[in-house]
């Protein structure tokens, strides 16, 4: 009986904290994708600079105001530019960055395909 009580109380506690945890996780996820401008090379989540600490507070505030992840990114991008995001979106400044791997893949594939076809012809 005691075991059952214990289990029920644990489940109840998990239920109580889960919604709070979810919000905290999203906040961590967002701050991990933000680059600290003071100690460049660190994310805002990892950094303990004045700027990063303020930004953590701001992200929490904005989430409480009801903004979603993308709205926060847009808000910060507008103020600090693409550089603040570790995962920049697809825009005219970044299309080359995003398309380069695909181009290389296609180019490499074409070379292999040509070799295979040539070999078959020889056989």
């Amino acid at each position, binding site marked *: 009986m005691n075991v059952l009580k214990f289990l029920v109380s644990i489940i109840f506690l998990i239920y109580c904290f889960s919604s709070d945890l979810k919000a905290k996780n999203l906040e961590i996820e967002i701050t991990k994708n933000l680059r600290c401008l003071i100690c460049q090379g660190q994310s805002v989540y990892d950094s303990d600079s004045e700027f990063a600490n303020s930004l953590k507070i701001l992200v929490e505030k904005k989430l409480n105001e009801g903004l979603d992840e993308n709205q926060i990114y847009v808000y910060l991008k507008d103020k*600090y530019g693409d550089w603040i995001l570790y995962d920049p979106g697809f825009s005219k400044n970044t299309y080359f960055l995003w398309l380069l791997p695909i181009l290389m893949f296609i180019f490499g594939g074409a070379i292999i395909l040509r070799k295979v076809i040539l070999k078959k012809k020889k056989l």
Partner: protein
Amino acid sequence: MKTKIFPIFLIFTFSIIFFVFYKGLQNTNVYTPAIKSEIEIPNFDTEEFFSKDKINSDQIFIGSDYYLLNIWASWCIPCKEEHKYLVDLSKKENIKIIGQNYKDNFDNAKNFLINLDNPYDLIFLDNDGTIAIEWGAYGVPETFLIQNNKIIKKIIGPLNEKLLFEIKELTQ
């Protein structure tokens, strides 16, 4: 013939790579946000420095006057260096200097103003640094020249003779 093309191609490729990386070495890799001007000033609620009265940014930046917003803190060494330029600017009639006290201790800040003079027409508090982010600032000191609710000039870092002259020119 085929054997000759390959080494040439290799040398060519590597010299291009060398050139690109060599050029890249000389670039500074510290990013500063692009200075966009003519952007609207943010709207925020804050407290006045001395009286701790609640104020909104609408009550601070009114009409078509020139406002110079200066983000400062008593713990910031460059702020001490630029302070004399702010005192100089405060003698100008047509420009109002607004201070934003960034993450500071009240007594230290007050002593700072007593020792170095108070050039500010109004000071408001930014205890958690979130208002600085609203401005798009990321450190202290930073200075913004504002007219008609628009930022017309943004200065990252301390003021100097040259910037002082520029501000005076802009507010003629």
